Structure formats: C-alpha cells, structure tokens
C-alpha cells in the first residue's frame, strides 16, 4: 500500500494511471460480462437437474479424466523437448521448434482430420495397426490423442521459456557438487522453473478440457466413450438451447474451480520457503 507522500509524488502520473485503470476495467468486463450473462440465464434448478442426467455425468467424468491424462502425457513428453530446445543448439532446431508450435495455428477440425488420416484405419500409420487388429479412431484413446495434439504447444512453449530462464550457473554448481544431469534437473532446474511449468500445465489442461473440433473428427461422439463435455454441449445446442446453456455453465464452473485450486496450491509452494 502506498504512503501519503508516495501518493503525492505520483500525482504527476495521474492521467496515465486513469487510462490504465480504464483499459483494465474494459478488458475485465469484456471477458466477465458474457460469462455473467451465461450464468444469469441458467436457473439453478436446471443446473441441478442437468447434473443428475446420465449424459451429463458421463460427459463430465470423461472430460475430467481424459483432460488429466492428456496433461500428464503432455508434461511427460513435452518436458524433454522443452528442456533440450531451451539449452541446446542442434541442426534442425528451428524446424522442431516450429513443428511443436503448429497445432496452435491449425483449426481443430483440420487437426482432427489430420489425425484421422494418420491413424484412422485407412491412415498412413493406422492401416498397419488395422492389420494387427488395432483400431484407434473412435475410441477413448483417440479423445486423449486429440487433446494431446492440440494442447501440447501451450505447455511446451511455456516450459521452454521457463527452462531458458534458469541461469545455467546453478546447474553447473550442482554438477560440481556431484549431481548427475538427471539429479540436477529435478533438484535445481525444475524448482527454479516451476511457476512457468505449472502455468503451462494449467493452460494445457484447460485447452484439453475445452477441446471440440479435433475430438469430434478423430474420436467421434458416443456417450460414455468419446462424448466429452464440449461435444455434449454442442449436441444439446441443436435441440434445446437451455439444456446446452446449463451444460456450458457447469463446464465453466468446474474449470474455474480446478484452475483456482491449482493456483492456490502453487502459491502455497512459493510462500513456503
């Protein structure tokens, strides 16, 4: 909190501060008002009755489980890529960097089509899997693959920036103290990059939770197996808009809860030492 004297000294900046305040208020309202409109339109009784519908329960459960698994997979595979690209130079690095970023630019439906053309039963790789009796498209695995594909750039980009921001000298110090490269990574690099890593993971989870276009194309839409919340919402939209709104509000509330819990937990980590 600023002191009286500090406020007096800052007086010259008042117009700028007012402008900034206005911009912040507009930005928050722009996001907040549509959300509020959504929440106000749905009466609580409708939401409660929706929550008891098996379609909704199945979709919620599937969404949360697949998004969690997808996030874990993205962290597992994305962390090495992010670290290597943060630290090392190698031929073709720029190409690899661009490839890992591309899913962000691709319209999700196109991403789904691409996955289908790669892993569908007539696909580039899928045709051989099909011969072995393995069919990936239209399964829950396909849901996870679609989410991993579209959501991975969020984590990889953020993790890469965070790792690059860790001063190498700390890793060097750990090495001279006897830590192997792997031990150094987990005891020094990760703790120093953790805020960015967690933020990237949360973004990935959120994107996976909201994923629609690639999922409907590659995994299809079947209750309990591949019908995630976004698919259920879109399906309901065709029939009863109120049901659709109720589902949308449920998704927003659950996502909000998950993300804020993660933020609280991670802030505790920072406050601890």
């Amino acid at each position, binding site marked *: 909190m600023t002191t009286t004297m500090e406020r007096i000294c800052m007086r010259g900046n008042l117009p700028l501060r007012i402008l900034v305040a206005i911009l912040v208020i507009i930005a928050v309202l722009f996001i907040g008002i549509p959300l509020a409109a959504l929440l106000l339109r749905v009466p609580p009784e409708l939401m409660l009755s929706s929550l008891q519908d098996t379609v909704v329960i199945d979709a919620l459960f599937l969404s949360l489980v697949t998004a969690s698994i997808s996030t874990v997979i993205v962290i597992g595979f994305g962390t090495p890529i992010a670290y290597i690209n943060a630290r090392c130079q190698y031929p073709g690095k720029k190409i690899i960097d661009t490839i890992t970023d591309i899913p962000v630019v691709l319209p999700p439906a196109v991403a789904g089509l691409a996955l289908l053309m790669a892993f569908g039963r007539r696909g580039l790789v899928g045709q051989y899997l099909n011969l072995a009796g393995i069919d990936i498209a239209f399964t829950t695995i396909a849901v996870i693959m679609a989410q991993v594909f579209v959501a991975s750039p969020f984590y990889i980009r953020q993790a890469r920036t965070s790792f690059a921001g860790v*001063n190498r*000298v*700390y890793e*060097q*110090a*750990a*090495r*001279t*103290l*006897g*830590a*192997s*490269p792997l*031990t150094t990574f987990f*005891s*020094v690099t990760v*703790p*120093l990059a953790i805020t960015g890593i967690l933020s990237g993971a949360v973004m990935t989870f959120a994107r996976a939770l909201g994923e629609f276009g690639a999922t409907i194309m590659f995994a299809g839409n079947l209750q309990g197996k591949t019908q995630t919340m976004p698919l259920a919402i879109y399906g309901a939209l065709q029939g009863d808009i109120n049901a659709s709104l109720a589902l949308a509000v449920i998704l927003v509330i659950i996502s909000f809860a998950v993300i804020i819990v993660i933020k609280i937990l991670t802030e505790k980590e920072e406050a601890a*030492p």
Partner: protein
Amino acid sequence: MIDIAVKKVLRDYMLDVNIQMPEGGTLVLLGENGAGKSTILNLVAGLMAPDTGHIRIGGETFVDTTTRTCIPAESRETGYMFQDYALFPHMTVYDNIAYGLRIRHLPREAIDARVRELTGPLDLLSVCDENVGSLSGGQRQRVALLRALAVKPKCLLLDEPFSALDVRTQVQVRQELKEILTAANVPAIMVTHDLRDAVALGDRICLMEHGEIVLCGDADAILQKGQHPFIDQFFIRS
C-alpha cells in the same frame, strides 16, 4: 599435484596453457577479464572439455585426449566456488551447504554435524534456516565457500572469491581463506585480477593474457617492477 596441459579454440583466441605443480598447493591464475582464467577452472571442473591435452589433479586423470578418457563433472570431486557464488536461490543456507552431502546419501546426523562444524567458526549458524536471498555479500561468500568445502573435495576451484566484497571484508576474508586452504590441504586453483590476493594466497602465480601464460613464479618472483604492465599497475597504486 596439478598437471594441466590443454589447448582449446575459443571465440576470441586460442587457449594454450601448460602448468605443472608436482608439489600441489595453491595455484593462482592472474590477469585481466577475458584472459581465459575462468575457462581453465571450467576445464578442470569438467564443465568444458579441451580440444587436445590432459588434466591430472591429485594423481587422478580427469581428462586425456590421447587416451580418450574423461571423467564426468559430477564424479571429479572438485569444490567450485563461482564468481557470483551461484547459491541455489530456492534453498536455505543449510540446504545449500548440505546439497553435496545429500547427493552422496550421507545419513542425516552426519550431514547435520558437518554443516554445524563448518558454519560455527564462521558465524553462520544463526542464519542456517534463512533463504540465501536475505544474506549480506560477505555471508553469501562464506556460504559459497562452505558449500564447496563441505564435500571434502580433492581440489578447490575459486573464481574471483573476493571481487564482490567491500575492502574491509576483503582483508579479513583473505586471511580466513588462507587458513582454510592450509587446513584443507588439497590442491587449489584460484582466479583473480587482483595482485594482492595472488600474493597473499598463491604458492605459484601465473599471469595469463589472451589464453596464454606470460609469466610464472612465486610471490617474490612476481612482485618485481618492469616485468609486465599488468604487475606494474599495482606498484603505481601502492
């Protein structure tokens, strides 16, 4: 025992150094910034590799390009004190000093005893549980030194250990370090741009310029006017 004979192509010049100290002791590398002194430390620590040559410390061959041997950095048991200390910012004083000991899986009591043994005489016991970010410059320097010493290294590497300290602390710490080095009784290589540090602590002093050694000798031999402009500047001052 120190045996360094290495060549390495660097960005601005070629590093070409040949130093032998069969009796061990403290080697001081003197010179301007960018002369290649810190690179020698990194080569000895294993953070960099030479193009050709070998490094043998205390009887152990760290790296030898002719036989293609190379011991990884984490196995060389060197204690490195970095120029800006590189204290782990997310850890307390205790955890920093204990880091190397924990890596070696020593039992908790042994680690505890060792940390107390080190921090006591240097007046750091009271700040053991504080995060390193809240320490003064002098305290951080001591913690960095203790962290390197804690694992009882076979060789000490010190990069400009006094540069970040004020003059009064420098004098005091120079004396402390002399005692610590004598007590530790391991080969040590110290990098500095200050002749006073070199003279106070070095058994052998080597002046480096553009990756090469231009002058080598003990304190008396070095402290002669007219040998090299770098030495002369200290005479004008005093």
